[in-house]
């Protein structure tokens, strides 16, 4: 059962036609298997070595039984037994047991080390791939997905790599070796030993006939419970404050009761059948069949009593194999699903890097007829042209959802345009090497990104070689110097551990970082989400320092902030509808003028 996804997602899963569902599941399973095979390729050789070892170890399982039979022959022979022969038989038994333990153990060790190596290399590959994915990919895929792929999913391969091959090999080898030996003794015994297996197989096949739809129904039931929990828990604040607690709770209880009822209906018949099926291969039944048959064979003079002894011992080992084989598919399914998710991450499109990168010779940023779409159908930006003259401030304003942030993210190349082009100094950003690009463009965004390392390293991220004085100078200019010095270990304090910073403080650290990076073009989100007025004033002072002498593109949330901008671009539904300076736009009496009027009314 794959309940690992985001619960909300699972809750949303609609009830589909079970047949279509089964078909879709089949195609998906095939893709998953292919993904799995290519993922396991690097450890295939080691897996084969382990399987070879395990074949020897598993075959040795039969040896003690043969030895006991030999012992029986020696002891039951008329006249006093030869101690040498007895000792020989005991020695063979012990030898068989040792070989089994040794080879099986080494095989497991081999696959376990292979698993460790594979996990490490997969993690490294995932991380390397992510380092080259388009930045926009990270907004579309939550970072939790990434973590899940790199940690949980990789870990889910463990059973498959470390156990499955070795255990399946043993599960196949033991009965093959046992039956082979019995054939060598007498073909009738070899047929008698697995006599009850067809019954089991029949019952099992009958059970599996309905398995797909049953599983589908069960999963739908789980999804329903999931949905009930999501509604119940997420909405509990609202539910309680609006006095609907009883109702939401009742909804959940009902879902739980219904699930219990359905679970009984679905699982009970399967379970009954399973109980019967497993009886047919249980030790007492197998013993009964083999002894009864054996007595008949002895009476008929086909086999000796000692052969019946051997056959009974071998026959009783065979069913235990079924348990292992039964576990296999489930584990394989889970691992396949994990492999598929990892493969998806590994196949993340890489941001194309120009093979002959150019270096821009000026800092003028220009958008030429830029269009952009996240999903390929709806254009978020449509035919946007804009020029950022060096040393000027350009402000983007517009209602929420008008495309301001998207536009800014294209300039920083978090995404690539789907139409038109963006140039810096006349060079298309796609033709500039990543490193070179960010030497020209810096950004301070709302979502502040600090790393769990020292404050100093956070500030000098752009220039690891910056001197202590340069770091402090940047911090001072960003109005955060004194706060940092008050931390338990000053600039050495680790962010998130010793340095617990408020949103506004973190923002100022990121401004210090941008100051030190000293890129000529700056993309700025005029952050207002900080509820802390003192911090806000300090942030503003810091930003004022930062923008000095740069080419600035600012996403404006509050209009008064940008009344002095050199250029204001008003966006609506992905298009620039107005452009000009504040007085010009007011005079034009368009969208901007309306927004300004709303603002004036709101602020008393």
């Amino acid at each position: 059962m794959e309940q690992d996804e985001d619960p909300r997602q699972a809750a949303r899963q609609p009830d589909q036609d079970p047949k279509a569902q089964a078909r879709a599941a089949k195609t998906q399973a095939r893709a998953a298997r292919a993904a799995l095979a290519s993922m396991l390729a690097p450890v295939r050789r080691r897996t084969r070595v382990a399987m070879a070892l395990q074949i020897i170890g598993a075959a040795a399982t039969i040896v003690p039984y043969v030895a006991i039979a030999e012992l029986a022959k020696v002891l039951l022979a008329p006249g006093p037994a030869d101690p040498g022969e007895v000792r020989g038989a005991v020695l063979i038994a012990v030898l068989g047991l040792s070989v089994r333990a040794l080879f099986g153990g080494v095989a497991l060790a081999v696959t376990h080390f292979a698993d460790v190596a594979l996990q490490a290399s997969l993690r490294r590959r995932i991380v390397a791939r992510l380092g080259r994915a388009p930045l926009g990919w990270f907004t579309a895929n939550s970072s939790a997905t990434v973590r899940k792929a790199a940690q949980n999913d990789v870990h889910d391969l463990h059973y498959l790599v470390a156990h499955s091959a070795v255990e399946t090999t043993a599960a196949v080898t033991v009965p093959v070796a046992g039956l082979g030996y019995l054939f060598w003794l007498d073909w009738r015994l070899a047929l008698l030993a697995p006599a009850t297996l067809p019954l089991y197989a029949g019952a099992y096949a009958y059970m599996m006939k309905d398995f797909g739809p049953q599983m589908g129904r069960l999963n739908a039931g789980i999804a329903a419970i999931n949905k009930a929990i999501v509604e119940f828990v997420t909405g509990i604040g609202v539910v309680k404050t609006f006095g609907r607690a009883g109702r939401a709770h009742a909804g959940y209880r009902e879902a739980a009761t219904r699930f219990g009822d359905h679970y009984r209906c679905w699982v009970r018949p399967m379970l009954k059948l399973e109980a019967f099926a497993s009886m047919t291969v249980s030790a007492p039944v197998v013993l009964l069949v083999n002894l009864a048959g054996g007595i008949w064979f002895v009476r008929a003079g086909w086999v000796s009593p000692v052969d019946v002894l051997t056959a009974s011992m071998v026959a009783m080992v065979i069913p235990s194999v079924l348990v292992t084989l039964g576990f296999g598919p489930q584990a394989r399914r889970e691992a396949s699903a994990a492999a598929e998710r990892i493969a998806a991450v590994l196949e993340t499109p890489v941001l194309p890097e120009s093979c002959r990168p150019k270096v821009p010779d000026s800092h003028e940023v220009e958008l030429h007829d830029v269009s952009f779409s996240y999903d390929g159908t709806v254009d978020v930006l449509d035919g946007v042209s804009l020029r950022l003259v060096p040393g000027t401030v350009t402000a983007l304003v517009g209602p929420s959802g008008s495309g301001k942030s998207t536009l800014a993210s294209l300039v920083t190349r978090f995404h690539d345009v789907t139409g038109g082009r963006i140039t810096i100094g006349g060079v298309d950003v796609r033709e500039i090497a990543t490193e070179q690009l960010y030497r020209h463009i810096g950004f301070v965004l709302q979502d502040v990104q600090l790393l769990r390392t020292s404050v100093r390293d956070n500030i000098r991220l752009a220039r690891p070689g910056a001197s202590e004085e340069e770091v402090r100078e940047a911090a001072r200019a960003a109005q955060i110097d004194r706060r940092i010095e008050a931390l338990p270990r000053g600039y050495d304090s680790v962010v998130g551990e010793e340095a617990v910073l408020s949103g506004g403080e973190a923002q100022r650290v990121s401004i210090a970082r941008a100051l030190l990076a000293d890129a000529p073009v700056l993309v700025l989100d005029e952050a207002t989400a900080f509820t802390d007025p003192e911090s806000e004033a300090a942030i503003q002072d810091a930003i004022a320092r930062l923008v000095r002498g740069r080419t600035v593109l600012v996403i404006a949330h509050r209009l008064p902030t940008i009344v002095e901008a050199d250029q204001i671009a008003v966006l609506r539904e992905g298009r620039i509808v107005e452009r000009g300076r504040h007085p010009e736009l007011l005079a034009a009496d368009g969208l901007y003028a309306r927004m300004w009027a709303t603002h004036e009314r709101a602020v008393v």
Partner: protein
Amino acid sequence: MIRDLSAVLGSAHRAVLFRYLAALCGYAVAQGLAVSLLVPVLGDLLGGDTGGAARWTGWLAVAVLITLGAHYVQAMLGFRVALVILTTLHHRLGDHVAALPLGWFDGTTVGRLTRMGTKSVLSIAGSCAHLLQPLVTGVLTPATVVVVMVFLDWRLGLAAVVCSPLILLAARVSVRLLNRMDEIDDAAGVEASGRVLEFARNQPVLRAFGRTTDGYPPLEAALKEQRAAARKQVWMAVPGMLLGGFAVQMCFSALIGVGASLALDGAVDPVELVALLALVARFAGPLAEVGEFAAVVRMARNDMGRVRAVLDEPPLPEPERSTPVTEPGAVEVDRVRFGYPGRRGEGPGDVVLDDVSFTVAPRTVTALVGASGSGKTTLTRLIARFFDVDAGTVRVGGVDVRDQTTAGLMEQLSLVFQDVYLFDDTLVGNIRVGRPDASEADVLEAARLAGVDEIVERLRDGWETRVGEAGTSLSGGERQRVSIARALLKDAPIVLLDEATAALDPENEAYVQRSMEALRERSTLLVIAHRLSTVTAADQIVVLDEGRVTEVGTHQELMVLDGRYARFWNERHRALGWRIAVDTS
């Protein structure tokens, strides 16, 4: 495990569990006895008495039938237990969670509880069939065989008895090894996980500053550490997995050796010896595998632990009936001290509020002002009783919140906080949550005031557009407007409002402004204020600084005081006049 199960099931259902366990034990013993009949059958057969062997086989058939019956009974009882566990756990979890204080819920709760409600509960329910059954039969059936051996030949039986503690010891050691290794892996895994997450979240800066081309050192180090830990783990895991099997095989070897030498001395009947060895050979296998169940047991125990952790969480104590409200619309915070409970019972956390006192008269506006982290949000949460205070009293409507039922308290309050939950329902349905029996006109009026009608115009299905998890997603500001509309519709005597995010952009700001004017006419307003206009228009301003109230008064009074508030107001005023321009200096 069984103790946990029985505790979770409660006395009403405990009987089923014990009936199941009894049936299971009966089955295991019956199986052991049935298989033991191998000895007389083989004895006669090897001794040349096929008639005797056939008679014993008849007895074997009878024993087999009994065993099969026992198997069926235990399987069905096991299923009944599973069902009881399933529904009992689901219901108990639901009932308990509903009674927990709102403060218990955070961003991770949904994920945790859905996982628990599906995966953990199902796996606990399944543990009877998948865990208890193999475990009990794996131990009890061989034990029965050993007892039978003692009766058949005391010397061989004794040898087997002597071996048992050895096997048990090996199993224990192996379980301990496997547990230890899990801990090693965990620490390294957590660190690596954290670094991967950091790497993904901070891609823009890492990339912009050239930290992806040559690798991000902390992540590299964490992955390397994880690999080293994993290798160390294997060195423990492989011996751990093999130890149990190894012990069993040693014992088996010893038994063969002892048996053979006894037979050579003529001390034991060779026929019986061979038959006994055959019997032991059958059970050496399953017993060796019991150790492998350690992992399954651990998983089940972890699931159980997660469920119990939730069930052990203390619910919010609530009176049977609310004390009647004496002063509708009033809020009084009286010498309140509070610190968030430490995570995982690390004792009381840092004090967030200390000796906070102020009163809010009915139908007045109080603005809470202070730097982030000064305790404003916490204060509103205490008034809504998301948590209980450590000292002092919070009175709403003149009555201690602890003397009111949740429903009674909530009747008096409307909350407009930052995180807005929309139900999987239509837009209008989501507003109606505020007062389900409101008239159509009331709903429309509330929506209009809060600016929801403006959102509706842009939606294809208008008022009937489905919003929430599965529907059209609204922006943060739009969600906030819906939440304000709810509050307007509910028309509670007291409104707690966090203005911070509501005032983000000009269009939202205008709606928030309008709604607040409507609200203040009929309710008491307690606002975490951000806009200067809200603050100056308030009847009372409460200034919080590091969890203490430093100043209380009107705007004029506090400006005259020339303290923290005056400083704040000047800063804020300066911030408002701020302009971005390249030549700013």
